[in-house]
């Protein structure tokens, strides 16, 4: 019995360590003063007001949202079709292409970002939305492809054969059978991709300019210049939004299933 208790005490301590930053951020965000203090000496929403009206943050949030939506959707289309090729077809250079497209998982983001900065300069696309989106597509593509790949492996190839047998052309098989069956994987992949794109920092720092900065870059710039808790308010909003999205995802898709954790 005491072993059980000890185990759960340890687990709770570790969880406390994992969550303490979030708790402190939320506490700080409601702090009335400019100087951070613990325990907080009151309650105020002034930093939320400042965060929501600060033009840099507003602009950066809009840019980031546009970039995230476009790049995760592009990654969804490209990643889905690539995963389909990998699972269904054999073609020369398949392994090489797979290796290249999944290498952004290993290559440091700042390297990728720096590369795209130089490429952007070369192509006269310096710090435009185009180059930012290209960078994000490369970064999030492996996540979408992986999610779709797993769902494709899980569908019985006889579904597709059966549809063809009943007279469905390859295009019909794809649109009526394959795609509907992998929709959960596509949705999960797209969701992960858009969150990762929204919060991506290291690569974005290189490829954005103040005009085209995304939210994490704007927050970074703010932290370097000011010490007031405005960023705490933004962070608190982001943490809460993430929590809510994950709870919804857990409810509708099942996080354990998306993450493939399940006991036997």
């Amino acid at each position, binding site marked *: 019995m005491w072993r059980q208790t000890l185990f759960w005490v340890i*687990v709770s301590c570790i969880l406390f360590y994992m969550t303490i*930053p979030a708790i402190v951020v939320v506490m700080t965000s409601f702090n009335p003063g400019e100087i951070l203090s613990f325990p907080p000496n009151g309650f105020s929403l002034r930093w939320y007001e400042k965060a929501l009206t600060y033009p840099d943050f507003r602009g950066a949030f809009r840019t980031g949202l546009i970039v995230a939506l476009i790049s995760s959707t592009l990654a969804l289309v490209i990643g889905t*079709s690539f995963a389909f*090729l990998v699972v269904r077809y054999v073609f020369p250079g398949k392994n090489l292409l797979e290796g290249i497209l999944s290498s952004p998982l290993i290559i440091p983001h700042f390297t990728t970002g720096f590369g795209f900065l130089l490429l952007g300069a070369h192509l006269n696309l310096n710090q435009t939305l185009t180059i930012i989106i290209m960078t994000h597509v*490369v970064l999030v593509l492996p996540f979408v492809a992986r999610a779709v790949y797993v769902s494709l492996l899980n569908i019985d190839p006889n579904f597709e054969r059966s549809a063809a047998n009943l007279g469905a052309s390859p295009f019909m098989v794809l649109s009526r059978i394959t795609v509907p069956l992998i929709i959960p994987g596509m949705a999960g992949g797209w969701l992960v991709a858009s969150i990762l794109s929204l919060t991506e*920092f290291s690569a974005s720092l290189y490829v954005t300019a103040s005009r085209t900065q995304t939210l994490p870059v704007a927050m970074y710039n703010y932290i370097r210049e000011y010490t007031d808790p405005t960023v705490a308010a933004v*962070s608190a909003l982001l943490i809460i939004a993430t929590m809510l999205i994950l709870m919804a995802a857990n409810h509708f898709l099942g996080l354990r299933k998306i*993450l493939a*954790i399940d*006991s036997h």
Partner: protein
Amino acid sequence: MSKRPFLIPFLVPAILVAVIFLAALAEILQYSLREFIPGSLDVGGFTLDNFARIYRPVYFKAVINTFVLSLATAFFTLILSYPIAFALVRTKVEWVRTLLILLSITPLFTGEIVRTYAWMLVLGTNGFLNTMLLDIGVISEPVTFMYTRAGVVIALVQFAMPVMIIILATAISHINTDYEKAAANLGARPWTVITRVVIPLTMPGIISGFIVIFAWTMSAFATPQLIGGGKVLMISNAIYLQGFSALNFPFAATLSVIALISAFASLALMKLIANRLERQTAIH
């Protein structure tokens, strides 16, 4: 009628992305071989001078630092993640499971900046941790966490834990609980069951988790930048310094090439060690 009707339309976009990505990497390689013209963003002719500069102690130290910090982070991440992963897989209470998964996964999706900023609030001289410790009376002077390696590792470990937990939980969920029951049935105490049965059976997960976190930490940037504050220099920070303060793009590119090479080299090295380890544990 082609047997692979979608080959071309599906392949073209993927190849396009791959080509763009390779072009970006090629740009780095190209710049790393160029001469730096101070005060100008244009670059000169081809040269190998940039690579000669690497041997300066600062950069050498940055490489070593990166390696040591990554190793330490991977190690502590593993130690702290294992109990959580175990609890996540084995608890039978639904709400505990949901709580565990939400709390341990959320940090993965909040992004580098939010997490680093939060740790600045916790670790700062007037931050949460010092205030608490002073109030309780454990310390009489604020402890310096900021701008130290320890501070950087404390923050990095927390970022790395979600990924490690996912990998470990997957590994643990794949062990058949019959093994544990059999061991207990044969008289093994719970702790012995864990060390002799559960941990060896999850060795592949432990190894791959360690490698993934090691690689992931090598590419950390915001945390050493903000919490290290220039005092804890990793390769990523050195590159940023060269690129954005000195505007020496060729040398920043050279450092990037070094970062890339050391990332792949240490991954290969770890895989090699891992294979050895795995073969050894497989015998037991």
